[in-house]
């Protein structure tokens, strides 16, 4: 095909694209975007459900996994109880995070390398600004941290997973054997999690639980303290380094997430 025919069309479409980029950055396209999303979101959900592969695991293995998650939650809860006033906790029987602050949301998009099998890059939820969801809100599944909201539209929002390379936050490791604690920073590595910037003088061991340290801002965005991030599976400690780091394993299977909760307060 001759360049003479292509160049005017190329120039025309490129200019429109550049105009759209400018309008999108200035948030002048929100109404049009919300209208398109309102139509397409139900279809997204249908397509996603088609890829929700239920792996036929051994029933005992499934039970053990559930039990493991439950025990992890109990350990965290008991740690919280110790640090709080026992009498007050007994009186109100607090559970964490409080269900009053949680907004249930359905996952309508979780694009991954192999649909339904590999870890998704991010999540799209069916709740948005109209439901009170703002940028920076934490997303959890039970007491396990999933990620945070990074974009919102009227009825939909985008969640950055904790495994994302751009994700980092302060956290602390807790040992339930001897009460050891260490502070550091959890970073996503694409598919895995690393607990780094931990002083060499601190002791980290496989099996220690890593919890959020809490970094909620005045606007209410950020992570609440004591949300479960994961369990340490290996420790990398070299005397020549300034800090030590550890590999974490999240109790969540991100590829199988279909319902989550947004902490809105």
């Amino acid at each position, binding site marked *: *095909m001759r360049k003479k025919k292509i160049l005017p069309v190329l120039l025309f479409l490129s200019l429109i694209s550049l105009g*759209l980029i400018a309008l999108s950055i200035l948030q002048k396209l929100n109404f049009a975007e919300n209208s398109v999303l309102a139509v397409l979101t139900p279809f997204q959900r249908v397509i996603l459900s088609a*890829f929700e592969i239920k792996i036929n695991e051994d029933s005992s293995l499934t039970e053990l996994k559930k039990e493991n998650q439950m025990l992890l939650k109990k350990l965290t809860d008991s740690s919280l109880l110790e640090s709080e006033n026992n009498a007050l906790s007994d009186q109100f029987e607090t559970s964490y995070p409080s269900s009053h602050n949680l907004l249930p949301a359905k996952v309508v998009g979780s694009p991954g390398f192999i649909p339904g099998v590999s870890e998704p890059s991010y999540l799209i939820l069916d709740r948005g600004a109209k439901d009170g969801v703002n940028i920076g809100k934490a997303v959890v599944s039970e007491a396990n941290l999933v990620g945070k909201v990074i974009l919102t539209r009227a009825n939909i929002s985008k969640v950055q997973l904790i495994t994302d390379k751009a994700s980092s936050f302060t956290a602390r490791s807790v040992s339930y054997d001897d009460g050891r604690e260490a502070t550091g920073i959890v970073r996503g590595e694409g598919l895995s999690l690393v607990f780094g910037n931990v002083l060499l003088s601190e002791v980290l061991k496989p099996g220690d639980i890593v919890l959020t340290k809490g970094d909620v801002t005045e606007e209410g965005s950020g992570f609440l303290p004591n949300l479960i991030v994961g369990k340490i599976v290996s420790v990398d400690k070299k005397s020549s380094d300034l800090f030590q780091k550890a590999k974490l394993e999240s109790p969540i299977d991100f590829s199988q997430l279909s319902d989550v909760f947004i902490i809105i307060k």
Partner: protein
Amino acid sequence: MFTIILALTILLEASSATIPLTLILLLIYAVYKNDLNVLFLGFFSGIFLDIVRLETVGVTSLYFVLLLSLVLMYKRKFETESSYYILIFSFSGVLLFSVLKGLNAPFIYAVLSAILAFLIYKTFIPKQERGGLTWQQK
């Protein structure tokens, strides 16, 4: 029919897959049909993809339009069979796209996309309808 498949790939990319299926499909269409309308299809597909992925609207459409224009402009300059042309363009196109989008392992995406595009082209496009010059014709 092609528009329906294109709409499905957009929804698939929005909900489940990070592999750029829409781009692969558009590249195949551009090489097979050698039609200017593919630029408009690329433009609108890009806009829809950006909207459903909650990304800056216009970025993907601009990339699609630029890449597809290159495919149309230089197709005849490469005196090779179209399936190899697809292989080269889908690899380089997806590699750059994956890097721009910040995907993990862009090289793997590029290799897989090139193989996928090559296989789709070889499987679904009849041999006599494939453009370009074959070795026998040369």
